[in-house]
């Protein structure tokens, strides 16, 4: 049975979090799967989380470059997030430059780079004014759930609830067909 790394669709983005040891064939399968999915879903952005990768060697580095180039040809942008410092140091010394690969430190910054439709808002891990996590049905007026909005209670929304479906007042959020977003960056 062929292994596949799961690809999540969130709005018009594709999210991949590599959580397993990446052997060469699996890396190539991911490349193929992503290009298929970009076309099938019309995705405009691809976010690849490599925070669990302890090494990025020339093969994996080339996979990331290829995915970035493929995406661009298919009218999408790729951002790689979570690169470990030791990996970055090693890549430079290895002499591997990945010119078409944009990077960001965290999933949030990566999403921001991609101009994501998905809004993630929190304040230092504290949820709503009452200290509890407020969700879609918190009674706030539709469209007022923006961080720093003038007046009104601040609403905290975790990215996992975001992916479930469109929220009242947020007409620009596309419904996600897949599982909730990877939970690593969700505030506790």
């Amino acid at each position, binding site marked *: 049975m062929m292994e596949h790394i799961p690809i999540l669709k969130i709005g018009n983005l594709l999210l991949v979090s590599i959580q397993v*040891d*990446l*052997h*060469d*064939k699996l890396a190539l399968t991911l490349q193929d799967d992503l290009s298929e999915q970009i076309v099938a879903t019309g995705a405009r952005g691809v976010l690849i989380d490599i925070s669990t990768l*302890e*090494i*990025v*060697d*020339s*093969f994996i*580095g*080339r996979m990331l470059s290829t995915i970035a180039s493929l995406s661009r040809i298919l009218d999408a942008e790729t951002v790689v997030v979570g690169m*470990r*410092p*030791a*990996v970055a*140091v*090693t890549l430079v*010394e*290895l*002499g*591997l430059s990945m010119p078409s690969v944009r990077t960001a430190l965290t999933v949030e910054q990566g999403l921001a780079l991609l101009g994501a439709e998905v809004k993630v808002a929190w304040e230092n891990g504290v949820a709503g004014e009452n200290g509890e996590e407020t969700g879609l049905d918190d009674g706030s007026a539709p469209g007022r759930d923006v961080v720093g909005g003038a007046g009104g209670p601040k609403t905290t929304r975790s990215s996992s609830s975001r992916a479930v479906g469109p929220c009242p007042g947020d007409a620009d959020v596309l419904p996600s067909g897949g599982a909730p977003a990877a939970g690593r960056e969700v505030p506790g």
Partner: protein
Amino acid sequence: MNAGIVDSVRTGKGAQRHPIATEADVVHARQAVRTLAVTAKLSLIDQTKMVTAASELARNTLVYGGGGSMTIEVVENGPRRGVRAVFTDAGPGIADVDIAMTDGWTSGSGLGLGLSGSRRLVDDFVIESTLGVGTTVCVVKWSR
């Protein structure tokens, strides 16, 4: 094989031999090197460099050498400890080692960074190859 680097160090722990015949073996090789690098108390960055070099060399052994083996052990040189990895295959061999060691040169479809890059990542690097016989690459990374 250059006797200097291979014999001048005293072996600290028993050598482990790992076959490199499949892609899974390359993954396994990374893990084995990582474990030994931790034992030798290499810094995280040095561990990462050594494991990355091992990944490149193991892949070379598989893809270009037709398969072979990796032998790793903790070595000592006076007060310093290090990890030594020897990759060997009975493949076609390398016609011109100097050219093979330049960045960007590849005899296949790779990036051409495996040999030259690995050399930059490790402290000691010895390569010996004979056409029609095979190739052996020995690398050592020392703790600081």
